């Protein structure tokens, strides 16, 4: 049996597994990725778009898939399972069973001839059984690896594929083989599945009625690459549905008929699906039946409002049942709980937002790994509050959805976190050193020799644009030496062909006419680099997003425009020049700003990876909110206990240098080499530090509610944080009636966001009040009960049982009124469920105040040159796939300064931020942005007009030479300065005037073209 050695084993290659593997591989560790399916990608690649940004899911996932497949430090095993793991952290031995696919991956070109020949049609699981595929198949067009697989359960062994395959890739004699590997640590990223409600919630008719779908099936129905090519039709008759409804919590939040937990993402994906439905067909009536609409992430509430404003109808109700009519429409019976009336309403299509459940195989895998799963089958952290990424066995870590429902951003953050933890048992291992840049070809030829590859993207382009005509036209263009039409230019196979064409024809420029350079540019640039062409010599023409998809009704203009875009790209290609790759050495230390849970966790994680850290806390003591909070949910652990544990951990690590009572005063430099000046305040020292990366963990604060809800007017009106302080100090007294008002200062015009943790905090504190003042009556005034996080729904229902609070659902448009009337505090509120105005006399009113970023954020953001939103929370580089990075390289964020979050999420994120920051620090060098601006000194008059245009302060006037100078690592390549220069002394690499004008001038082939 073969045995191979790696550093880390990653199990599962959805977005989490991919992120964990890339984070590790980028640090120089050798990673083995084991994926049970034929392609990597997981759930995300089956989605249409992603909330709340509505990014196209495959567009943002595909580049990561390709990056993973090509990473020199990653070995990918698909159609494989982990059978057994022996050993301990630092030296595990894993037995892996690789299923046979009966196709030789080395020979298969992904052409699909075999599938066309195969006579067996089977239900396509990727498309939720809404279409069929063959017994030999590719999971989806962008599959990685792009190799066909025989589904042996359905193959009849007829051999048709074998006869059709020109490369002889079919290998019926291939045998499954076991493989043993040694690794130091393991990341479990096996994600989750969605419930198919055929045994529970049968009254909704799933599996019996053709037009009742799960949300995942509906994603396929919306998807452009789905079974209907993105036209929204109902399965029974192919007609567009005029009325579509979603039922929430199908199998979730159910003590009976399902699972007790909240699946956390379905309120948002239903909202997203409804919104996209309206985009597809604005006249559709979209209705969502919900109990509590949990729109609690960053920008989620705004997204929900947008859907409501676009006409998505939200009905607060959990429908009773669904019946089918003779025309296969569906009648839903429900009570609108806000009016108290029972209705039967008919819809054409019904989507069930079914529970997120663990894969049934989790239990088997858990046995093989020797780790614990919870009652449902999700992998269980050893300590869910304090150590959410650590499984029950040392050296094995949990990423993404494997431990419970998580959206993409949280999955990615957790994956980075797990990657950081996975590094720790590897201490002392030799890392793979960074490969030198690939050798570049000689570009001796004076005339550019351009190769043009025109992609038909299956039917995505080919269906609307005459690709052969475009290719033939390209052949006639000046400088074009080679043209090829390809079916899927981004496939693995096409990369091989591009490289071969460059070699064979001695090409010096490559133009790919396909989709967007944003999503696919880097892939082709990498291909070019592999064949010795500098990435700067590559250009793309976006004939899919700009032609075929948007001019689908008329082939002629679409084709003409595609030809124009190719001509423009070729013209620009002629002007292209290599973009030099530059690297800078990195100071391998990190600055962490903020000493709360997030900052301390990040610092400790970095120290454990062997990195020196400077931890700066403004206050005289570490701990952040832990210095104020009483007990923590889940688990009712005293906050002081966690604080002591973390502080002890920080003090025990000699790599952490602590600056208390200190603030960042000045910052200059860039990734790899920042210079930070810390000021310890009056009487304290001023220190200058040299660091390679910065993690920002400055936390959050409660909004100032003075003047609202009677706050500030009477000491009996306090906030949750103040309540925590009283509970902690034991100064609560004995209130008999407590009114909690949730969403105080949230969900309104001024602050449209949802504070995400407020409902859970209120629930925890109701329990705490009940303990501290037995017999107290608690009124909870809420809009939607949005308890957030793993175990929280269960905690909420335990609280209901123990405390029996009076829950009053109020409407945001009619908020509760708090008044002080002859020394009594009175709360008046309209209960939308009772439909009564209630007047409550309270001994204590607790406001669940809106949360904002730290008060000092406006100053810090200027220093760091990063962006925030209107509530003072920092803005990440990409809401879905780069949640821990700032757009500015070398600076990372985590914890509640990004958005309010609970402690488990904060810890996961902080660990993840440490992973991100450790990449340049461990790697030891960073690359400079290749498209920076440069100064043509001979033309620069030193006028300085450009200087104020640079948002990054990258420009300065060189007093000696009287010309402008640009600090290369600081330049982000926006080109603003270039347009500002009156003497044409600035140029932007990759976007020179010459390159851009070449395109402009060829857009219509000059004025003579008519």
């Amino acid at each position, binding site marked *: 049996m073969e045995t191979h050695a790696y550093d880390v084993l990653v199990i599962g290659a959805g977005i989490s597994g991919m992120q964990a593997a890339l984070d590790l591989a980028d640090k120089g560790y050798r990673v083995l990725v084991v994926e049970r399916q034929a392609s990597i990608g997981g759930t995300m690649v089956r989605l249409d778009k992603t909330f709340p940004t509505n990014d196209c899911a495959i567009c943002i996932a595909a580049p990561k898939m390709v990056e993973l497949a090509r990473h020199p430090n990653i070995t990918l095993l698909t159609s494989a399972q982990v059978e057994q793991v022996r050993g301990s952290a630092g030296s595990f031995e894993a037995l892996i069973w690789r299923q046979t696919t009966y196709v030789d991956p080395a020979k298969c070109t992904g052409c699909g001839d075999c599938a066309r020949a195969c006579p067996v049609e089977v239900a396509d699981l990727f498309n939720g059984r809404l279409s069929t595929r063959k017994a030999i198949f590719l999971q989806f067009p962008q599959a990685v690896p792009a190799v066909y697989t025989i589904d042996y359960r359905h193959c009849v062994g007829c051999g048709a594929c074998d006869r059709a395959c020109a490369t002889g890739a079919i290998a019926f004699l291939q045998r499954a083989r076991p493989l043993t590997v040694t690794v130091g640590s393991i990341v479990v990223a096996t994600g989750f599945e969605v419930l198919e409600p055929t045994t529970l919630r049968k*009254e909704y008719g799933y599996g019996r009625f053709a037009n009742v779908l799960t949300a995942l099936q509906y994603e396929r129905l919306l998807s452009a690459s789905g079974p209907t090519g993105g036209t929204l039709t109902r399965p029974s008759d192919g007609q567009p549905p005029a009325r579509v409804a979603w039922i929430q*919590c199908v199998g979730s*939040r*159910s*003590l*009976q*008929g*399902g699972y007790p937990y909240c699946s956390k993402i379905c309120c948002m994906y239903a909202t997203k699906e409804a919104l996209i439905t309206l985009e597809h067909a604005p006249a559709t009536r979209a209705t969502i039946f919900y*109990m509590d609409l949990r729109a609690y992430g960053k920008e989620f509430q705004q997204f929900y409002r947008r859907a409501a404003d676009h006409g998505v109808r939200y009905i*607060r*109700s*959990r*429908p*009773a*049942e669904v019946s089918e009519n003779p025309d296969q429409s569906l009648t839903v*019976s*429900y*009570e*609108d*709980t806000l009016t*108290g009336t*029972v209705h039967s309403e008919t819809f054409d299509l019904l989507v069930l937002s079914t529970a997120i459940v663990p894969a049934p195989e989790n239990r088997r895998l858990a046995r093989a790994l020797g780790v614990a799963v919870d009652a449902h089958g999700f992998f269980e952290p050893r300590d869910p509050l304090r150590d959410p990424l650590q499984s029950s066995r040392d050296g094995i870590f949990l990423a993404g959805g494997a431990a419970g429902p998580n959206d993409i951003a949280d999955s990615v953050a957790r994956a980075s976190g797990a990657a950081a933890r996975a590094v720790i048992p590897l201490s002392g291992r030799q890392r793979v050193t960074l490969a030198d840049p690939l050798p570049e070809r000689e570009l001796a030829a004076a005339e550019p020799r351009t190769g043009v590859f025109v992609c038909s993207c299956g039917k995505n382009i080919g269906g609307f644009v005459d690709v052969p005509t475009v290719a033939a036209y390209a052949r006639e263009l000046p400088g074009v030496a080679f043209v090829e039409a390809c079916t899927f230019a981004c496939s693995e196979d096409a990369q091989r062909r591009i490289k071969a064409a460059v070699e064979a024809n001695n090409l010096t420029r490559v133009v790919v006419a396909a989709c967007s350079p944003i999503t696919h540019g880097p892939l082709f640039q990498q291909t070019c680099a592999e064949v010795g062409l500098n990435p700067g010599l590559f250009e793309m023409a976006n004939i899919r997003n700009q032609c075929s998809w948007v001019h689908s009704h008329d082939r002629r203009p679409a084709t003409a425009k595609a030809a124009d875009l190719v001509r423009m790209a070729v013209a620009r290609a002629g002007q292209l020049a290599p973009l030099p790759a530059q690297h800078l050495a990195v100071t391998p230390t990190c600055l962490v700003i903020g000493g709360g849970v997030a900052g301390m966790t990040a610092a400790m994680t970095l120290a454990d990876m062997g990195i020196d850290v400077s931890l700066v806390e403004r206050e005289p003591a570490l701990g952040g909110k832990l210095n104020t909070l009483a007990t923590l949910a889940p688990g009712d652990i005293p906050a002081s206990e966690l604080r002591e544990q973390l502080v002890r951990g920080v003090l025990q690590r000699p790599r952490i240098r602590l600056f208390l009572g200190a603030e960042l005063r000045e910052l200059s430099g860039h990734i790899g080499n920042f210079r930070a000046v810390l000021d310890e305040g009056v009487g304290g020292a001023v220190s200058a530090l040299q660091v390679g990366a910065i993690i920002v963990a400055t936390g959050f604060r409660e909004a100032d509610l003075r003047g609202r809800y009677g706050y500030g007017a009477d000491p009996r009106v306090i906030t949750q944080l103040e309540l925590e302080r009283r509970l902690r100090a034991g100064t609560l007294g004995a209130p*008999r*009636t407590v009114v909690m008002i949730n969403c105080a200062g949230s969900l309104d015009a001024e602050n449209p966001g949802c504070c995400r943790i407020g409902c859970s905090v209120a629930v925890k504190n109701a329990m705490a009040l009940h303990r501290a003042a037995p017999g107290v*009556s608690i*009124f909870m005034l809420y809009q939607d009960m949005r308890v957030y996080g793993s175990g929280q729904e269960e905690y909420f*229902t335990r609280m*209901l*049982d123990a*405390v*029996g*609070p*009076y*829950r009053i*659902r109020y409407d945001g448009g009619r908020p509760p009124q708090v008044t002080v009337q002859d020394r009594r505090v009175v709360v*008046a509120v309209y209960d939308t*469920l*009772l439909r*009564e*105005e*209630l*007047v*409550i*006399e*309270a*001994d204590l009113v607790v406001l669940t105040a809106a949360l904002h970023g730290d008060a000092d954020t406006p100053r810090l953001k200027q220093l760091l040159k990063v962006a925030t939103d209107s509530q003072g929370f920092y803005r990440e580089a990409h809401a879905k796939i780069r949640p821990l990075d700032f757009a500015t390289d070398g600076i990372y964020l985590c914890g509640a300064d990004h958005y309010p979050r609970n402690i488990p999420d904060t810890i996961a994120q902080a660990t993840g931020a440490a992973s991100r920051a450790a990449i340049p620090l461990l790697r030891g060098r960073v690359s400079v942005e290749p498209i920076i601006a440069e100064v043509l000194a001979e033309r620069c008059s030193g006028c300085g007009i450009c200087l104020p245009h640079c948002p990054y302060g990258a420009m300065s006037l060189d007093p000696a030479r009287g010309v402008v100078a640009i600090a290369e690592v600081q330049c982000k390549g926006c080109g603003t300065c270039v347009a500002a220069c009156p003497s044409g002394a600035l140029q932007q690499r990759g976007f020179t005037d010459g390159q851009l004008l070449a395109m402009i001038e060829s857009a219509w082939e000059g004025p003579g073209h008519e």
Partner: protein
Amino acid sequence: MSMTIRADSQANELLQTVEALSGQRLAACYQCGTCAATCPFVAAMDLPPDRLIQQLRFGLPGVLERRAFWVCVGCDSCAERCPRAIAVPRVMEALRLIAIRERGDRLAVAQLPAATLRDLPPIALVASLRRNTG
């Protein structure tokens, strides 16, 4: 209408009795409306089950004067679907029992027409008496 709820008027005896008799914890109700939409007789109820529960919890007056719990036949449909596994029919039975204890039987065999008595299956008669009398 505006209801004043005072700190010291919280002793909601009716709720306590109902919870004790039915063994159900009404605070657990999500107010989701599944029971109401499930009930085959909701149209005849002057207060659907979910609202009945809510009114009971808040101690609103007049619950015992309602007809709803006399309409409920204990078919268990709602109880099967309730996400919180609340046995609504037990709540209804508790209310019937309390009403009967306070105001006496709702039905007397003597009042029923002889023809009805003769034709009815015994289970109908006995069940009706069990649910309408003390």
